[in-house]
């Protein structure tokens, strides 16, 4: 059980830093096609920002509720990734061959680019939720059962 940190410096800095880290995580996630970065690093940065908010404001703070809700998304990232592969099969091609994504008005290379973005989002969600859930199971006694049972 992590309680709220009692230093006002940590609170003020946390309020300033956490949104910046989240924006940077999204930037890394979506800029991974043009520079260094990608789904894995973006997901870890997004997860770290949520872990930071739990470490600073405690488990019971109102802004930690959304982090607890994020625990329910375990497996959603994998579902997105495999779902993109399934859509490719519905489009009439091989599993994860993004050229078969059925989107009108896009040429083959743009379809593959879009497929890369979607699967990177899947990886990012999976990694972020895994990082949060490991931290929660390391730090909390009954928080996981609470958030799952009601």
């Amino acid at each position, binding site marked *: 059980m992590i309680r709220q940190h009692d230093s006002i410096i940590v609170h003020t800095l946390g309020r300033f830093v956490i949104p910046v880290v989240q924006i940077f995580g999204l930037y*890394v996630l979506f800029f*991974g*096609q*043009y*520079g*260094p*970065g*990608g*789904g*894995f*690093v973006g997901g*870890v*940065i997004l*997860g*770290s920002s949520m*872990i930071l908010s739990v*470490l600073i404001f405690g488990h019971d703070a109102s802004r930690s509720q959304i982090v607890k809700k994020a625990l329910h998304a*375990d*497996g959603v*990232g*994998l579902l997105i*990734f*495999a779902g993109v*592969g399934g859509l490719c099969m519905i489009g009439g091609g091989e*599993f*994860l061959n*993004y050229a078969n994504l059925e989107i009108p008005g896009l040429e083959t*290379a*743009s379809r*593959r*680019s879009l*497929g*890369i973005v979607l*699967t*990177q989002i*899947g*990886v990012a969600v*999976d*990694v972020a*939720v*895994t*990082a949060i*859930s*490991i*931290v929660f*199971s*390391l*730090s909390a*006694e*009954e928080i*996981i*059962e609470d958030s799952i049972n009601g």
Partner: protein
Amino acid sequence: MIFPFEIPLLLLLLVTAAGAILVKDLMSAVLLLGTYSFFLSLVWGWFGAVDVAFVEAVVGAGLGTVLFLLTLFGTAPKDTRLHRPPPSLLTLIVFPLLGFLLLYAASDLPEFRDPSSPASVHISPTYLEQSYQDTHTPNVVTAVLMDYRSLDTMVETVVIFAAGIACILLLRRQVK
């Protein structure tokens, strides 16, 4: 004359690695390990592997340190000093021998940035030449990971998912 910054970097790497092993306190060892990861990410960046450097900095120096510290606070809140027995004679013989063997094998590796090394002539030129036309993705690493090798990446994601589930199941506390 350009100052060779690689030598202090590798020296710092060695010092932090040795410090993380030799230090007497678990907390200091964890923090030194984070510092080691940070210097290692600088080394990856120096080699030109920016994506790997990014992951090393975020996971090794950031998330790994947090996980280690949380484990430390959850297990031994008071006494984190290490009681380390002196190494046995076998360790003192085997590990220098292993290190010598690895260095001996490393001398046979191809030259760094060698365009005719086996790794650079097999399939890398195809990726470098065609990945932009194929996928409209300027970052070749992302194109290879997410498009040409997407099934591998998906199984990697499965591994991460399984690791998270295993952590939840193993670390779950019983509720009364």
